């Protein structure tokens, strides 16, 4: 399948986002959670809409609208998003009110906004975009499935088109507490050490964020190309390396052309073997970019990874702490990249990306 191209990005994450503030200062976790740094939402969302939106809605709509603004595209041909949980704040509020008011006298707003496609709807209303509009809720593959759908749609489009593709998930106190009871989060976290140096115990860091991308089937102004996407459920540990190599061959690449890995290592000893298995099928000198120590673990953390990769490909220098295995030289720009991320050993995602073709920017 032909590649699709990322032309613009926007993100709200636990790290600083823009210009000289990119990743500076680096934000580390406190009490096992990395919370998103929220921007001034009024720059992208009208006040009368903003008042009704919960935190997740604000983050998602802001990021989507900001990505559109940066791209200069007023109305995308399609809007595709992925989320693991949607707006948890609204879901929790609605469920609590169901109980408190005994299923009577319920506010409609939390219910409306707890639906997964509320952010897509809000962006579509604000931009008057009446084209393809889809939200995927496939747990740890939600974002990657959205990318795949965008690739399919753009592949079949006869003329240049632009799709707004994004993801969002939030960490509420309630959700954090519930998941901590079943061992999701690292109990012995020492935030003075990188997360991957603490992979000898179960649990990881909680995180949240939103990331949006403008995808096109035209390479004009491209930052990166997405060549292949593969999602799978419960891939056996022994098959991970083979699956990656098969995907590379199917794309017409050779494994030795891969010059960088992006891995979702999260410090959980139960999740580490999959990443180790993939690493073992590539040279042990390849630079490896990590991301969950910067954004935390959540179903759509792959959005943050892709956003961070785009910053690198766009000429920004990533902090040393971002690298799991550092490249030689500050000016390192990879050409062919393999991204592998899995969520709790269940949802496995492989994406092949490239630096933008010469002369497209």
């Amino acid at each position: 399948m032909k590649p699709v191209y990322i032309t613009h990005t926007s993100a709200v994450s636990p790290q600083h986002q823009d210009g000289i503030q990119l990743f500076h200062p680096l934000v580390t976790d406190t009490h096992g959670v990395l919370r998103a740094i929220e921007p001034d939402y009024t720059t992208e969302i009208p006040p009368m809409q903003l008042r009704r939106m919960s935190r997740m809605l604000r983050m998602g709509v802001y990021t989507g609208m900001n990505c559109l603004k940066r791209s200069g595209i007023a109305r995308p041909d399609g809007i595709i998003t992925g989320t693991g949980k949607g707006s948890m704040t609204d879901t929790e509020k609605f469920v609590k009110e169901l109980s408190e008011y005994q299923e009577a006298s319920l506010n409609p707003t939390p219910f409306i906004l707890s639906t997964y496609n509320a952010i897509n709807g809000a962006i579509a209303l604000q931009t008057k975009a009446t084209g393809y509009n889809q939200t995927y809720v496939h747990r740890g593959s939600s974002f990657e499935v959205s990318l795949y759908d965008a690739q399919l749609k753009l592949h079949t489009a006869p003329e240049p088109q632009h799709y707004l593709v994004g993801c969002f998930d939030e960490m509420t106190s309630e959700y954090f507490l519930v998941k901590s009871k079943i061992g999701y989060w690292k109990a012995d976290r020492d935030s003075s050490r990188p997360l991957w140096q603490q992979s000898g115990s179960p649990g990881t860091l909680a995180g949240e964020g939103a990331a949006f991308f403008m995808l096109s089937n035209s390479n004009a102004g491209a930052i990166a190309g997405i060549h292949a996407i593969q999602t799978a459920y419960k891939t056996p540990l022994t098959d991970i390396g083979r699956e990656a190599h098969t995907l590379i061959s199917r794309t017409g690449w050779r494994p030795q052309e891969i010059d960088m890995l992006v891995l979702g290592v999260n410090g959980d000893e139960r999740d580490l073997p999959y990443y180790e298995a993939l690493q073992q099928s590539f040279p042990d000198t390849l630079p490896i970019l990590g991301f969950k120590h910067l954004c935390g673990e959540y179903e759509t953390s792959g959005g943050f990874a892709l956003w961070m990769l785009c910053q690198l490909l766009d000429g920004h220098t990533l902090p040393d702490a971002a690298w799991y295995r550092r490249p030689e030289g500050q000016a390192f720009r990879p050409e062919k990249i393999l991204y592998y991320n899995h969520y709790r050993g269940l949802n496995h995602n492989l994406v092949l990306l490239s630096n933008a073709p010469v002369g497209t920017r």
Partner: protein
Amino acid sequence: MEDLKVTLKQQIIESLNLQGMKPEDIDDNAPLFGDGLGLDSIDSLELMVLLERNYGIKIEDAREGRSILASVQTMADYIEANRKF
């Protein structure tokens, strides 16, 4: 009645999350929908929930609701006449 209107305005501001607005910014007789506060149909549902939760008033007829929710004054008048608590 004056105390009720101030309380009601406060409840409207909180319920509809009208950020930066104070009770004195809402005119008793200004329309809540359209040109006045600019509220919409979802807000009308929120206001009906507000009346039910705080005053025990249940509005069953949508047409009746439209006149009750016309302004703070019409809401206060209806509450005075029909409140359960």
